[in-house]
C-alpha cells in the first residue's frame, strides 16, 4: 500500500511541476494500473519521451501490441535507467496507466527488467535506483 501511495504523491508532484513540461498527463488514466508481461520489440531512448514497444500475449495466445510512454532520457537516468536497460527480445513486466481513449498505449509506472531489477519512471516515480 505504501509504495502505491508514494506513487500517487509523486505523480501529483510531477503534475504540479510539469506546467512547462512537454505535455500534461491528462490523456492517461492515472486511477487505473494495468500489469502486462510481454516481449520488447523496441526500446526507444529518445526525446521528448522514451518508449517501450511491446508485444503482449493474452491467455488464449493472441498477441496485442502496446506503446508505452516513459519520461525523457534525462529524467529516466535519474531513476537508474540506461539506454541499454532493455533491448529487442527481452521479456519484461510493465505496470502502466492506460490511455483513456482505450487504444493500446499507456504511461509507464514500473518495469521489471530481465535481471529482476525494478525501475520506475523518473525521480519520485516508482522504485529508486
Amino acid at each position, binding site marked *: 500500500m505504501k509504495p502505491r501511495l508514494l506513487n500517487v504523491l509523486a505523480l501529483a508532484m510531477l503534475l504540479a*511541476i*510539469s*506546467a*512547462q*513540461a*512537454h*505535455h*500534461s498527463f*491528462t*490523456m492517461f*488514466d492515472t486511477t487505473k494500473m494495468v500489469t502486462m508481461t510481454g516481449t520488447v*520489440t523496441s526500446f*526507444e531512448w*529518445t*526525446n*521528448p*519521451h522514451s*518508449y517501450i*514497444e511491446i*508485444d503482449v500475449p493474452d491467455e488464449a495466445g493472441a498477441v496485442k*501490441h*502496446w*506503446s508505452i*510512454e516513459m519520461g*525523457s*532520457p*534525462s*529524467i529516466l*537516468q535519474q531513476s537508474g535507467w540506461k539506454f541499454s536497460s532493455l533491448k529487442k527480445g527481452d521479456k519484461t513486466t510493465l505496470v502502466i496507466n492506460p*490511455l*483513456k*481513449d482505450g*487504444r*493500446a*498505449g499507456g504511461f509507464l509506472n514500473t518495469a521489471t527488467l530481465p535481471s529482476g531489477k525494478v525501475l520506475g519512471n523518473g*525521480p519520485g516515480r516508482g522504485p529508486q535506483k
Partner: protein
Amino acid sequence: MDLKKIFYATLALATLLPFAWAQSAKTPDLTGVWGPFKGGKGPNAKFAAPPAGQLVLKPEYAKPYEARRAQEAEANQRGEQLASSGAQCVPYGVPTMMSVAVYPVEIVQTPKQVTIVSEAFSEVRRVYLDRPQLPIEDVPPGYYGRSVGHWDVDTLVIDTIGIKTSVNGYRGMPHSEQMRVTERMKLVAPDILHDQITIDDPVVLEKPMVYTLAYQRLKDYEMVEFVCDNNREFIDEKGVVRMKVKDK
C-alpha cells in the same frame, strides 16, 4: 624623477582600475550546471525563491488570456490537454526556457559572453557583456532575441529584447514586440543561484511582472542530449493533445 614616476604610476592605476574591477577576482563565476532548487525546507529554506508578483494584464489582453486559461482548466477536468507549443516540440524561448520542469540549465561564463544552455530542447542563449543594446526595432523577433549584460558588483544583469509574440511568456501570458526582459542573476549562496526576472511590456502589461527562479548547483552533472525527434504527441481535430500508438 621619483615624483614623476609616482605620478605616472598613479595615473596608470587610476586608468586601469575600473577595468580590473569590472572583471575582478570578486566577479562571481556562474559557470556550471544548475537544476531547480529543492531545498525549500530545513536550513536552506531561506534560499527559496520569493513569491512571484502579480500578473496584471491590460483589460483588452486580460479577457482573452483568462478565457483561454478557463478553457484549459475545463479541458483538464475532462481529462484532455489543449494544444500547446511544448507538445509540438516548439522551443520555449526567453524567459520560459529558464525553467522547464526538472531540466537543468548550463551556464558558461567568459569575460565577454555568458552562454546559457537549457537541457530541455537544447535551447541556447548568448548574453554579450558590456555591449550596448540595440533599439527593439533593429532586432529581428525570435525565440531568444538579443541579450546584453553587465556585472552590477555581484549580480549579472541581463537585458533581452526581440522576442516574437508567438513565444509565450510567464504562465502563457501574451506579450507585444515591445516586451523587455530584465534578469538579475546572483549567487545567494556558493551553490544556490537566483534569477530574478522582470517582464516589462507597456502594450500588454499594466505593471511589470516580477518572479524569481531558484537553482542549485549540480556538481559534475553532464548535460543530456535533447533532440525532439520522436514526438508521438499530436493535436486531434478538436485541438486536444493525444498520443500515437504503433500497431507493431
